[in-house]
């Protein structure tokens, strides 16, 4: 094997400029792909992080049918306390779950005693909410960031509402809501803080204490609209979703149909399409890389075989087994792949390090100056490296096969 590699490397050095150009193509392709994966991956994880860690959580449990009518925030599809107890039991038993936060959600009218507008109200347990969506408090633009997000009798309102209603921290406001029986009730709150929207200017979500929500809605028992869940390891999302789905699947109605649904953040946020788009672009750029390596290596190997027909005839005539001739040319393609991979990986990692030191910023929704910190997983580097090597070998296969099957007489006569 060493002999084969030695001869292959000398043959590559024999046509230095051509080998160098091919290597350059592989290196540029690798750098482009790894940089794109690192930067796009960084943007995607930051975007997903903003959505999951400040609004949705990683997973949510709802009563069946709730998500289909989520725009109306239906009160008749809340989970009953017995259901909530069973969900919490399942969550306690799942070691992948870090925390969860039960929420009561409803639509109401917000009044500053002079004007009235609509508001989506989230009744939360502040401690559980902070543990489940830890970036939520960071979105406070006014009001004390330290301490519980809301206490009893307090409300945190979205910036859009605060501007429109000219409401400030410390003002007293009224929230009026209709409960599931159709009775209307109102309650006064003191504005505790003003919350910047995570994703854009349209956010109308306000936060009050869960006990206040139940009082406002005159709930006879502790119903819950949704339970947001945070996982210890985000990469286990699909696995935990399946586990919870299985654990909660036993809860069924009188017709024997399951009464609860488990949704990932991607099922609930339109930004999941953007994340999928990034994945699609990553796949596309990988296809481009494969094409570059395939065409570059195949071109150089076809030329190598064509230019060395007499040489192939000579080594075949003196008894070199066809398998060894095949391996000689495969080794050339493999070496182009190996050197290109090593150089491409090294340059990519340097470029990623450079960007991390440079610390460029970007905006996402209302979030300003988010620092781009591209990272790349070892698995991604390995995948791309293996991909380049495999494609380099595949690209060499046809020319190498042709060389190994060459008729020595015809090859020796070749001019």
């Amino acid at each position, binding site marked *: 094997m060493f002999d084969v590699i030695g001869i292959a490397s000398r043959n590559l050095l024999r046509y230095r400029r051509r080998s160098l150009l091919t290597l350059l193509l592989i290196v540029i392709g690798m750098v482009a792909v790894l940089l794109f994966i690192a930067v796009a991956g960084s943007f995607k994880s930051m975007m997903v992080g903003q959505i999951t860690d400040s609004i949705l959580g990683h997973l949510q449990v709802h009563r069946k049918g709730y998500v289909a009518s989520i725009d109306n925030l239906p009160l008749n599809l809340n989970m009953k306390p017995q259901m909530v107890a069973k969900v919490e039991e399942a969550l306690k038993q799942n070691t992948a779950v870090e925390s969860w936060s039960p929420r009561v959600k409803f639509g109401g009218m917000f009044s500053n005693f002079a004007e009235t507008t609509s508001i989506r109200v989230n009744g939360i347990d502040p401690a559980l909410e902070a543990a489940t969506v830890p970036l939520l408090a960071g979105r406070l633009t006014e009001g004390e960031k330290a301490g519980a997000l809301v206490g009893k009798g307090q409300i945190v309102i979205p910036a859009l509402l605060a501007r429109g209603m000219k409401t400030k921290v410390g003002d007293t406001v009224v929230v009026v809501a209709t409960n599931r029986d159709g009775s209307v009730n109102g309650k006064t709150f003191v504005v505790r803080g003003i919350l910047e929207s995570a994703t854009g200017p349209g956010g109308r979500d306000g936060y009050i204490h869960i006990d206040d929500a139940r009082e406002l809605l005159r709930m006879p028992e502790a119903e819950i609209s949704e339970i947001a869940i945070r996982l210890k390891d985000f990469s286990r999302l699909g696995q935990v979703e399946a586990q919870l789905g299985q654990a909660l699947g036993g809860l069924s109605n009188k017709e024997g149909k399951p009464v609860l649904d488990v949704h990932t953040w991607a099922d609930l946020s339109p930004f999941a399409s953007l994340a999928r788009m990034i994945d699609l672009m990553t796949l596309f750029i990988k296809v481009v890389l494969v094409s570059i390596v395939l065409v570059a290596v195949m071109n150089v190997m076809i030329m190598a075989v064509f230019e060395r027909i007499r040489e192939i005839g000579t080594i075949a005539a003196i*008894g070199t087994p066809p398998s*060894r001739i095949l391996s000689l040319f495969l080794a050339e393609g493999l070496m182009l792949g190996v050197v290109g991979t090593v150089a491409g990986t090294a340059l990519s990692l340097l470029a990623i390090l450079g960007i991390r030191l440079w610390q460029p910023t970007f905006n996402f929704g209302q979030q300003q100056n988010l620092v781009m910190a591209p990272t790349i997983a070892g698995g991604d580097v390995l995948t791309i490296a293996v991909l380049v090597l495999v494609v380099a070998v595949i690209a060499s296969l046809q020319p190498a096969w042709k060389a190994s099957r060459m008729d020595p007489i015809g090859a020796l006569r070749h001019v």
Partner: protein
Amino acid sequence: MSLVQATQLAKTYRVGDIDVPAIKGIDFAIEPGSFVAFVGPSGSGKSTLLNMVGCLDHPSSGTLKVLDTDIATLDRRASARFRGEHIGFVFQDFNLIPVLTVFENVEYPLRMVQNWPAEKRREQVRRMLEAVGMADQAGKRPDQISGGQKQRVAVARALVSNPKLVLADEPTANLDHDTAYRILELMKSMRDEFRTTFIFSTHDPKIMGEAEVTFTLEDGRLTNNTSGGSHV
């Protein structure tokens, strides 16, 4: 037992829709240790005959036995193995591998074809380079030595694996007269030293006189042979 035995040997090529006979049913035998020339004008069938003796091509009809092996029975892989084990080749254009040094070119058959152990291999290569007078050029690349030196290296490469038979197709065609004679002398002395049978082809009347046995080919038929050989 003859080293090479041909009986009613024929080779026909198909060019388009036409059959072109290159060798037309010839019989001959070559004894071990002989120094044989196939002579004749261009197109007489010398190269075709040498290709068949060298297991590079199969006969269309008749039999050709080399070292008592009917070469028609050998498939592609078996032919390569047979050549690697028993036959050395010297080419008109020397055909040294340009990326290898003189030493490595001679070493190639032992390293890439026969897998000799390193120490034994190096010793054998040194011995062969000494024998052809190229030991002092061992580290040079083919483009750094003359045509005559290249052919010496080619002879060393052909002999390095101790083959029973060395085939040389027009080995002196690209050499000047003096160098050509020296190469033939070298081949003869190698034959004497290693008891290897040499078969070469030439159309140069001055060179053919150096052979101990001469077969003359004309239009695919043997028309004459001189001394030692047994032309039936």
